[in-house]
């Protein structure tokens, strides 16, 4: 089936550094999402993105966070600077949003971010 690829699978960085998480969404999908999950807890919505713009973001999407997808390349989540509480698994997802309102959500395998 359709696959969302996330690179890297694990990232370890020092607090205060910048990190970029990369996502290769399913081709022809139109909506892109980032979710944050701390081990064993709920999937927390961060942001969704459509047509080059942030459509909606949650309170968890701090000022230090930014997203972009330049020229159809990777959909990225950048955190600058990172904080200890940013340690979590970040899941990227994409959705087709075609005329049939086929709004299934497809997830990547996640990037585990460890901030030391």
């Amino acid at each position: 089936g359709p696959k969302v690829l996330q690179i890297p699978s694990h990232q370890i960085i020092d607090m205060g550094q910048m990190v970029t998480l990369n996502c290769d969404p399913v081709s022809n999908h139109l909506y892109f999402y980032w979710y944050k999950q701390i081990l064993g807890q709920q999937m927390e919505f961060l942001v969704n993105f459509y047509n080059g713009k942030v459509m909606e973001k949650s309170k968890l999407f701090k000022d230090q966070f930014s997203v972009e997808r330049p020229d159809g390349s990777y959909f990225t989540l950048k955190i600058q600077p990172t904080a200890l509480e940013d340690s979590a698994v970040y899941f990227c997802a994409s959705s087709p949003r075609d005329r049939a309102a086929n709004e299934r959500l497809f997830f990547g395998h996640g990037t585990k971010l460890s901030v030391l």
Partner: protein
Amino acid sequence: GQQVQQSPASLVLQEGENAELQCNFSSTATQLQWFYQRPGGSLVSLLYNPSGTKHTGRLTSTTVTKERRSSLHISSSQITDSGTYFCAMITGYQNFYFGKGTSLTVIP
């Protein structure tokens, strides 16, 4: 804000028993999707069920949109069914909201 409530929070079954998971949402959902996650794993889409009843294998989902609820029935549970089951709804604001999940443990 949007809320998705799942029950029970956790469930322990013996192999072969059936499981019934519930999902209730606070506003009218335009779409609803059930996911499965192994500990430390990614989310796997199980069923996309905006309304009515859908089947796949041992899984049956029934969504009653007007009553803002959906259920996931797992028949003849197996040890490999252990994990966390999430329901997620989408509203007119184009965002998927997740419940806190039901942790299922199937024992021999």
